[in-house]
């Protein structure tokens, strides 16, 4: 699966969506749309959030599934929360 780039490889600023297209009728929409905050997170963080939802928000279940300790998993969640807060402010 192709990895969605979220930062500019040249200046590292956040990228925006400038074009969307329909794969069925080939309609193309141009504009400037900001990426949703969740998509601006790293793929590793997105995978973690995905696991978090699938585990009904149980960090203990995620810890068992990922083979990590509970504080390691909780720290990961805290780091993601902090990253989201930073993205909301920017």
């Amino acid at each position: 699966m192709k990895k969605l780039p979220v930062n500019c490889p040249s200046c590292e600023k956040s990228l925006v969506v400038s074009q969307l297209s329909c794969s069925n009728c080939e309609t193309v929409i141009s504009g400037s749309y900001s990426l949703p905050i969740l998509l601006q997170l790293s793929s590793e963080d997105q995978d973690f959030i995905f696991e978090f939802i699938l585990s009904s928000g149980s960090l203990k279940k995620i810890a068992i599934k990922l083979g990590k300790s509970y504080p390691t998993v909780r720290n990961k969640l805290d780091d993601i929360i902090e990253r989201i807060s930073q993205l909301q402010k920017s």
Partner: protein
Amino acid sequence: MKTLLFKPFEKYSEKTLLFAGLIFTIIGSYLAYLFKTRFDGVLDIHIVPNTFFYQTLLDNLINISCLVLFLSISTKYINKKTRLIDVFTTAIVARTPYYLLPFFNINGLVGKASEEIIQYANPELISQISFSSWLIIILFSLISILFLVWYISLLFNGFKVASNAKGKTPIILFSLSLLLAEILSKFLIFKFN
């Protein structure tokens, strides 16, 4: 292997760490009794002429309690979500390298060598100290330093995982906690054990 030796707190559950830590503490205390060693301070290990199992066990319980006390204050200051169980497992598992050190005093090897050195610790008599005693003491000192580094790195890794510590402030708090734990443990062991 690296995770098991230096970062077990990132991987293993608190139940596993607690169980392993308690077993290591009891075995470590028994080894210290067998090989006449005292853990008379959070960072101390000394060869003694004689000891009892209750003394070595109490040494370790005091050391663990002092570590838990000061590390939990620091970790709570860094991160309010820190759990006491994570600090406790850090303290009991991190001390494991120290529990291996009494082995080196098998047949009173280190004790005899240090007695000989103390006996001839005089500029005129120093040449009478045997080469083997020097070698034993130097090797034991080097191994003790290595195991001390291993112990502190385990302790710091556990501290970081328990509190999600980042930056320089936690390093200062960790060092301060260790120093205070050392002072208090020395005092308590001297007073009660």
